[in-house]
């Protein structure tokens, strides 16, 4: 991981734009990564055309898990829900602009797992496979 670490990740970690919980939402999901204690909750409001009109995340954990959640919400707000369903591991790597390495990939993927599990209305985020 190169110097982008500080710039992108630390910036979003220290000064997130979407931290909090929506008062009005129709999707809510939370999960944690037991390996390192990262925790993410996402609340989402979708409109009549199945677009994400607003979103917020809350939780705690390492900078990658929290910053990625912020970057992810930045990206999905105003996107079609169907588009979000198509996002994979590679979408996240592209979004954050760094290869988090094999070990921290789990941290980076937590927020997308939570988001997709919420959208699909699943009972467990384990059912989400982001490899494909």
């Amino acid at each position, binding site marked *: 991981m190169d110097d982008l670490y500080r710039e992108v990740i630390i910036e979003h970690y220290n000064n997130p734009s979407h931290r909090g919980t929506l008062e009005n939402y129709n999707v809510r999901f939370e999960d944690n990564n037991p390996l390192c204690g990262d925790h993410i909750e996402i609340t989402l409001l979708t409109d009549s055309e199945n677009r994400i009109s607003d979103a917020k995340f809350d939780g705690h954990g390492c900078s990658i898990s929290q910053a990625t959640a912020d970057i992810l919400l930045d990206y999905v707000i105003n996107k079609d829900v169907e588009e979000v369903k198509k996002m994979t591991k590679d979408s996240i790597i592209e979004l954050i602009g760094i290869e988090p390495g094999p*070990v921290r990939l789990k941290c980076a993927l937590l927020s997308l797992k939570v988001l997709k599990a919420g959208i699909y209305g699943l009972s467990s985020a384990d059912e989400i496979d982001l490899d494909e």
Partner: protein
Amino acid sequence: MFDVALIREDFPILNREVHPGQKLIYLDSAASSQKPLSVIESMNDYYRNSNANIHRGVHKLAEEATEKYEAARTKIAKFINSEKSKQVIYTRNTTESINLVANTWGRQNLKADDLILLTQMEHHSNIVPWQMLSSQLGFSIEYIKITPEGLLDIEDYKQLLVREPKLVSFTYMSNVLGSINPAKELIQLAHAAGAITLVDGAQAVPHFPVDVQDLDADFLAFSAHKMVGPTGIGVLYGKFDLLKKMPPFLGGGDMIKEVKFSGFSANDLPYKFEAGTPAIAEAVGFGAAIDYLESVGMENIDRHENVILRYALGKIMDVPDVKVLNSNPKLKGGVIAFTFGKIHPHDVAQILDRSGIAVRAGHHCAQPLHELFAIPATTRASFYLYNTTQEVDAFVDGLYKVKEYFK
């Protein structure tokens, strides 16, 4: 292009003199193969430059080690054409792979009144785990017969399938007879009868192309040390849905998602089955072994071995008193097990050794098969990509020398 002289240069041990003036002639690859420099060096390099524990470390070495460990898994998956690389579970060897299935799938699915099928030509590794489990759970084991020529008796198999066995576990190639079983057909028949299949690929995967999807195998077990890779590592391949439903095997670090004082939840595949610090350097070496075999080409290896086998069979059958178990080179890999009159195989092997020739003597972990043929032991010569017809000549000359000792 397959050039055995060039291949031999890759294997440093082939230059060794095992006795003064006697260069090694290694005809014991069915027991364990030799290793090319690239495999030895890959582990060397790992220990000198990247060594660390995997998965849980975020420092550079831990990331490199994790990447190498997982890259090898991906290579192995491609090599056997596994659907996903997470269907490749690292074990110690073929034996552990089979025990894993017995203790997870077997314990979960086999009941007292059930039947499982093995064959009469199985290696102890594919007999004893089932005998152990059967003595706990009470299911029955039947052994599919072999013909006097040493081939699987398909008619007997079909008869046994009528009794609706839950599992058919068989070796793809016998390490004594050399017989190559029609795995695809056996699996089709098993599936049609509602049975799950386990293929012991210990002697197959090293020697010819094996494609799990084409075979439609439910499980496949093999060992790195027999396929130019290191000791200490093997593989269990399984169908995704089967592996997913199986309970874990050994408990400990890495195989868990979460542990509390009150209980644990198991990790995703493949980690669910890899408890504790795994054989990391060995996985790296296994990856290099796959690279090596692919660079040579499995079809080329298969063809070369068949040439050597036919040449050797031709010569050895002329030696008085030699009797080969399955002497038909058509459905057979590069293994020749034989008796030599009244001379005990240990004596044959020991006297051959004085000319630098390494063959194996004993029951080759297939005691029931030997009992079936009413012989306690055989001498076995086995071939691999680095063997030559000159080595076969020396071996057969050696047999004549043995004869002189015991007149």
